């Protein structure tokens, strides 16, 4: 007991023992890891069930009148659904921190790739939170203003949701490189998941076709443009959440490479 007190005063953290700090670290890391599955559930409630943005009830080839009418008739479900969806997207920012905390441990004193993960993850989160705002704007005056305005906001939201894949791809590649560039025999995550993460990043790219096509598999209802990135993103989030929880459960919460923690 007395030695622990000496140790903690020496590091300027009087009052908290090593065990306390470990327990706090463990709980906070589990909390943010669980944001991955939580995000998926909230997305299912908000976007799949209530607002019906996934799979999209509104097609890019629908006329402005059809779009405005849909928003007018489903205004409440869309608004409530958007609250859930937006919450899901905001949790992505929290979940991204979970990945960064995991990889930061091994990356050394200047964790460049972890910083890349964090900035790209934050930029991506900002984008998709904003597109919820655009959908909400479309719902705000649907029926009162000319239908083209409602349609334009709905278009803008999908074009941001799928078309801005770049931060997401860079994020996934940075996470993958974080794992692959680790030359120790014990990377933070199993080595093959580094390749898996880079593959996931490549799979987000087809979302970019939303900018060019109003129908077919490359439009926002299409299998290539919508389903490939979303399904792969979901698997990516859930699997890395699982791996992070495993790391925490193995008691691996408060350690750093000796060279780093000095």
């Amino acid at each position, binding site marked *: 007991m007395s030695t622990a007190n000496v140790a903690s005063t020496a590091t300027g953290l009087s009052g908290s023992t090593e065990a306390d700090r470990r327990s706090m670290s463990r709980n906070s890391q589990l909390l943010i890891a669980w944001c991955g599955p939580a995000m998926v559930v909230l997305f299912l409630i908000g976007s799949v069930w209530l607002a019906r943005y996934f799979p999209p009830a509104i097609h890019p080839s629908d006329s402005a009148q059809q779009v405005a009418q849909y928003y007018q008739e489903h205004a409440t479900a869309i608004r409530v659904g958007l609250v859930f969806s937006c919450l899901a997207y905001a949790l992505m920012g929290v979940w991204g921190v979970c990945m960064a905390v995991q990889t930061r441990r091994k990356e050394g004193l200047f964790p460049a790739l972890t910083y890349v993960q964090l900035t790209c993850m934050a930029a991506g989160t900002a984008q998709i939170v904003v597109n919820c705002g655009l959908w909400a704007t479309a719902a705000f005056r649907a029926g009162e203003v000319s239908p083209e305005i409602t349609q334009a906001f709905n278009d803008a939201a999908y074009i941001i949701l799928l078309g801005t894949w770049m931060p997401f791809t860079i994020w996934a590649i940075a996470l993958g490189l974080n794992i692959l560039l680790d030359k120790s025999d014990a990377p933070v995550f199993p080595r093959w998941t580094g390749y898996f993460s880079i593959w996931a990043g*490549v799979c987000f790219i087809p979302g970019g076709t939303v900018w060019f*096509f109003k129908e077919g598999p490359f439009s926002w209802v299409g*299998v290539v443009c919508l389903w490939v990135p979303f399904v792969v993103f979901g698997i990516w989030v859930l699997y890395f959440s699982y791996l992070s929880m495993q790391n925490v459960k193995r008691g691996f919460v408060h350690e750093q490479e000796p060279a780093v923690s000095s």
Partner: protein
Amino acid sequence: MTMNAWPADPFASTPPKAPERRLREPGHVPGEIGIWVFIFGDLLIFALFFGVFVYERSRSAGLFEQAREHMNLTFGAGNTLLLLTGSLFVALGLNSLRHGASGPGSRMILVTLLCGFGFVVNKYLEYSNEIEAGHTPSTNGFFMYYFVFTGIHLLHLLLGMVALVIMYLIARKPALGSRDLRNLEAGACYWHLIDLLWIVLFALLYLMR
């Protein structure tokens, strides 16, 4: 030194490095298992692309055939030959490097890089030809698939050229360890994947009548 305060790192107790692997022993995974996760992931996505293309083609066969007749087969076939030759040289280069011939091995990787560069130039000429002739992704279904699929393939190829540059730098090392060989094999497998996907794209976009 002050580190004894931390509990033991559970990851530090993993077994020591595997012994140097022997050359191409039976049951040896080319590269490492991770690169095959990537390759099969990509094969899955491209299988979807191929299926979508043949399905959509069957729904408007006349239009697709008409559009295909505008295609210049020489560009497509030329690119196939370039990629096949590049694949041969990367395979030969790997073979030399395994037997310690660093000079020839690294030069063969350079030849592959040259083939990849030729592919990009060829693709640039072909794209500009098509656009000059008034064919863009929004012209019709055929050209939409043509531009998107070859574009995604081209992105893969550019990534592969980055991999080749890294492989060249590894190959120039005076002595190769088992980690170097693993990375070289993984890079070679990725380059062959690009070749393999193009073989099918060539058949679907240029040759299906």
